[in-house]
């Protein structure tokens, strides 16, 4: 297939740029609005008459935005690293060992994927209250660390590593712990990175869990904090837009730094079926 620029291709590209405009416009709108004073957000112009940083300084002065971002970072990073550990170990177990009830256990994890959110949250609320875990970080970290997707990913990847490698290491007297640490982990690094990133993203963006389990303003994560600002009686939309813009910056940085792993991770499962 040649890669010449035919008239038909030009049309297709123009159409794609049209779609791109639709995708980008709301972001640009949020960015523009975040520099406007309150009165202008409620008026009909496009551009701010003067570019003000008031909304951003207000965000740092009047809200707990920095604290929410800190909470989000702590929770999402912990979940990502813990998921890499849990899913790495279990994925290796499922890929390279035979044991009773193996298929049943795996199916159990598969089946949990499409369960609606509150089915688990309803009993958990009482349990977490009894365990004294309401309003603490672990209640947001642990459920995301036991990631069903992470388990599939690790099992699939580790099962492609040759069995001879493991046998040779065992014959050389390598213990199971060392085998995991110095053979499985280094070889499975690409898959681990993908699991870590995807768990990070889903934790960073999650809304239901922190909404239910975090009970005080200073323990909120970004989505709950921003939703709260937005639902106040006299919501300051300029502040909300500044928060929306700033809160998406870390995610964008992560995305641009690691887009290969992210896109590969999110599409791989689908194409293999």
């Amino acid at each position, binding site marked *: 297939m040649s*890669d010449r620029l035919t008239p038909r291709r030009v049309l297709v*590209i123009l159409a*794609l740029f049209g*779609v*791109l405009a639709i*995708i*980008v416009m*709301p972001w640009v*709108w*949020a960015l523009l*609005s975040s520099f406007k004073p309150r009165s202008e*957000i*409620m008026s*009909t112009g*496009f551009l701010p008459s003067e570019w003000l940083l008031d909304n951003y300084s207000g965000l740092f002065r009047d809200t707990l935005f920095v604290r929410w971002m800190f909470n989000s970072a702590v929770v999402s990073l912990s979940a990502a690293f813990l998921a890499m*550990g*849990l899913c790495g170990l*279990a994925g290796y*177990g*499922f890929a390279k*060992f035979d*044991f009773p009830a193996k298929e049943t*256990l795996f199916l*159990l994890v598969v089946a949990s994927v*499409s*369960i*609606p*959110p*509150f*089915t*688990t*949250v*309803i*009993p958990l609320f009482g349990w977490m209250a009894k365990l004294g875990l309401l309003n603490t970080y672990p209640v947001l970290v*642990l*459920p995301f660390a*036991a990631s069903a997707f992470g*388990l599939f990913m690790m099992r699939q990847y580790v099962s492609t590593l040759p069995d001879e490698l493991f046998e040779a290491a065992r014959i050389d007297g390598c213990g199971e712990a060392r085998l995991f640490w110095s053979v499985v982990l280094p070889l499975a690094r690409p898959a681990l990175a993908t699991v870590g990133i995807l768990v990070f993203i889903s934790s960073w*963006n*999650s*809304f*239901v869990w922190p909404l*239910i389990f975090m009970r005080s303003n200073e323990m909120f994560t*970004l989505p*709950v904090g921003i*939703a709260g600002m937005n639902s106040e009686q006299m919501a300051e939309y300029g502040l909300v*837009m500044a928060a*929306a813009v700033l*809160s*998406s910056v870390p*995610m*964008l940085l*992560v995305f641009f730094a690691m*887009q290969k792993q992210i*896109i590969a991770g*999110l*599409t791989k499962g*689908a*194409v293999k*079926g």
Partner: protein
Amino acid sequence: MRARRAATAYLLILPFFAVFGLFWAGPIAASFLYSFTEWRGITPPSPVGLRNYENLLYDERFFTALGNTLWMAGLYVAIANTAALSLALALDSGWMRLRQFFRTAFFLPMTLSMVVAAVIFQLVYAGDIGLLAKLLAPLGIEIPALLRDPATAPYALVAMRVWRTTGYYAIIYLAGLQAISSELREAARLDGASELNVIRHVVLPGLKPVALFCIVLSTVSGLEMFDEPMVLTQGGPGDSTLTVVMFVYQQGFQFLQLGYAAAASYVLTVLIVLVSLVQRFWLRERGR
């Protein structure tokens, strides 16, 4: 030897399953049991048999929620998948040098949390001060405050979800397209098949596993819609955007009818399982 290998394996999977049991498997089972109790949060649950499920049958708001959820999810799945497939076909036939750029750009909205997307879109939809109205005003089209009108609010929420996820599905479809050998397509073209026929008889059948994945995934996520109505409409105006998950949240965490909420949530769970089974079966049948 075998027994020792099995013991090692159990040790390897133990940490995962300890957490999985406490946060997923355990609660899913417990929720099922709670759905047969009256449980108001403070007092311990007391068994009531099937009464919660019976009450759901007579609860008009539940049926409103069920109806809203089904048609909004259906609309979302249809639009998102059609748009995503068209985008993927365009990307596939387009000029390769730009493909990587578009792939990245189309994926971007997916990195936004639903909450952030929602607060941004409320300023897009906000009547004459909203972006949509300002863009369409020069064309003489007037856009009312879409989220305040029961006739338009559900469409506004679906459109927002399409905006956020279509690029993601397009990239999955594109990966599927690129897995179909281009020789096969070239051969069909050389045999004189029109572009449309190549798509219909060569490309679409080959895309089936990918389509199944995207359709099931978008259906499940559509049936579980919660963040957008929670942030933007609280299920209103006039229950027009009340989804089943929103209903469960209100019953469970606003009215503290936890047993009743568990029952409603289980109805949705069964529905999701059924719909994904039917889709799997249907797509497989049509494939032969």
